[in-house]
């Protein structure tokens, strides 16, 4: 039972890091990124490719952390003038391109077959690493949130024109926050790779992106603690529904489908009755002259 709890907490921690990385982009800055699974995938695959080429683990890790922010710039720069809805689709497309590339080029990373990654020594190590990563991400995100940089991000989110009139270049802010968020995502991916021991394209689909988004919106975009709660709830819902399913004495495929139906239903109900999320953002008033 302890092992199960350790496993659950580790997974929840990794997904919380992803939720925080999305919160930085969307919750604080208003960037509708539907491809946050991409830096995650970069991290995981870097770990896998590094391992398959025989390098020690930190080579893959460093490669991912260098490569991911560069990718974020490649996505953010050309698209800065697009409206939000298109931006969402572009990021979705970028993530799909990554997945399809990995799927169709077996020489790089095993293609559909995937690639093995050396695992953490024990599940406790995995737990500690993931929690440490979560702590670091949370602290970084909170620092950003409370800093003048973070306040400007929120201004950007609400009104980009205003931000420009204040003499700040929106592009620089968006690029900076994207780079940080993608580094976080990549770190989560590296942790995930070493935790599950195996990386394949099936783990990086649109469904996964939606799970991260659900965590952010459920928890309350803009508040880091909120999105962590969101990630935990999603995990709990998914796992506890397995137990509920076991009590019921119906054909197994019917139960499996009802379980997923319940998940969808809860998601919808949650939104109808608590649309601002669990931990809504507090409105703050600051006097610009004093900062």
């Amino acid at each position, binding site marked *: 039972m302890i092992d199960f709890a350790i496993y659950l907490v580790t997974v929840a921690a990794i997904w919380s890091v992803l939720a925080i990385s999305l919160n930085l982009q969307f919750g604080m800055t208003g960037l509708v990124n539907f491809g946050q699974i991409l830096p995650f995938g970069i991290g995981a695959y870097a770990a896998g490719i590094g391992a398959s080429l025989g390098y020690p683990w930190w080579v893959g890790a460093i490669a991912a952390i260098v490569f991911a922010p560069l990718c974020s710039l490649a996505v953010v720069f050309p698209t800065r*003038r697009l409206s939000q809805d298109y931006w969402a*689709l572009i990021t979705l497309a*970028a993530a799909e391109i990554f997945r399809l590339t990995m799927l*169709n080029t077996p020489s790089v990373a095993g293609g559909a077959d995937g690639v093995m990654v050396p695992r953490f020594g024990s599940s406790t190590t995995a737990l500690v690493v993931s929690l440490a990563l979560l702590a670091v991400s949370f602290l970084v995100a909170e620092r950003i949130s409370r800093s003048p940089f973070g306040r400007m991000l929120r201004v950007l989110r609400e009104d980009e024109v205003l931000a420009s009139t204040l003499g700040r270049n929106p592009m620089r802010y968006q690029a900076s926050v994207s780079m940080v968020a993608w580094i976080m995502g990549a770190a989560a991916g590296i942790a995930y790779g070493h935790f599950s021991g195996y990386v394949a394209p099936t783990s990086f689909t649109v469904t996964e992106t939606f799970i991260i988004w*659900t965590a952010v919106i459920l928890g309350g975009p803009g508040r880091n603690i909120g999105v962590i709660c969101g990630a935990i709830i999603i995990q709990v819902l998914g796992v506890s529904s397995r137990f509920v399913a076991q009590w019921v004495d119906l054909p197994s495929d019917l139960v499996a*489908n009802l379980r997923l139906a319940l998940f*969808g*239903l809860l*998601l919808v109900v949650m939104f109808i009755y608590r649309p601002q999320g669990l931990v809504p953002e507090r409105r703050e008033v600051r006097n610009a002259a004093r900062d």
Partner: protein
Amino acid sequence: MLQVVINSVVYASEIAIIAIGVSLCYSILRFTNFAHIQLAIVGGYLAYTFASIPGLPLPVAVLLSAIATGLIAVLVDVIVFSRIRNISPEGKMIVSWGVALFIRSMVAAIYGGSAKVFDVPTEVVVMQGAVFTTLDVTVVAVTLVLMVALHAFLYRTRVGSALRALASNYDLAVTRGIPGDRLIRLMWFLSGALAAVGGSLIAMQTRLQPSLDLIILLPVFAAVTIGGISNVFGAVIGAIVLSFAQNLLVWIDFGMIFTGKPWHIPTQFRDYIAVLALLIVLLMKSSRSTGGKK
């Protein structure tokens, strides 16, 4: 080459009917509705169920399914979407995903998760070296008829003009006395019915499966995006562009042109082409647009 044209037109028709519904919903309600594609699947299943009633001709079954699915779409709006009109567009997208998940799982619970075949007798026609079936002709014909009807409705009737006014500027239209709520219900009914027809046709061409919506998600959204997300008939253009790009690029013998030995783009890269086409079009839009983010 004729074969490529035929294949492209057929595939485009299959995608277009569904893409139009997505655009229609977006143009008025301003969010991307993932549940729409699942409604197409529901339409396919309902048509299948109606068609198994002895003596009921297939077109009638599809018609009944269209009406039923339209009503289901309205019901979904009443129960879910109408209560969340004021949340963020991203929130609505997530909710639509939840609705899609719920509907998909219920369909699987009722009909079983494995695929079903919708048996439609077709004949193969060969013309000038190109091959197609009578079902292909039906698909394209139905799509064309629906396009024409929809165009006539939107541009030549008062109700249609009212819908277009809502799409262009919702608040202004409402202050001018246009009954927003009622027309939204009409919009849902229309897009549900269209989805049902599209889904039935796809089901007849291929198969019925609860998770088919996830499979056609990317091409449908690519088509919608290429055509301009709130441009209803743009979705059709988008479907055509996408379909041709895919079929043409896979067919061209690049090897012969460049090196003298035959070589095609391997067909597994077909999805790539869809995604790349989407990216290129979006980037072109980006460089031409003058405004900032909305």
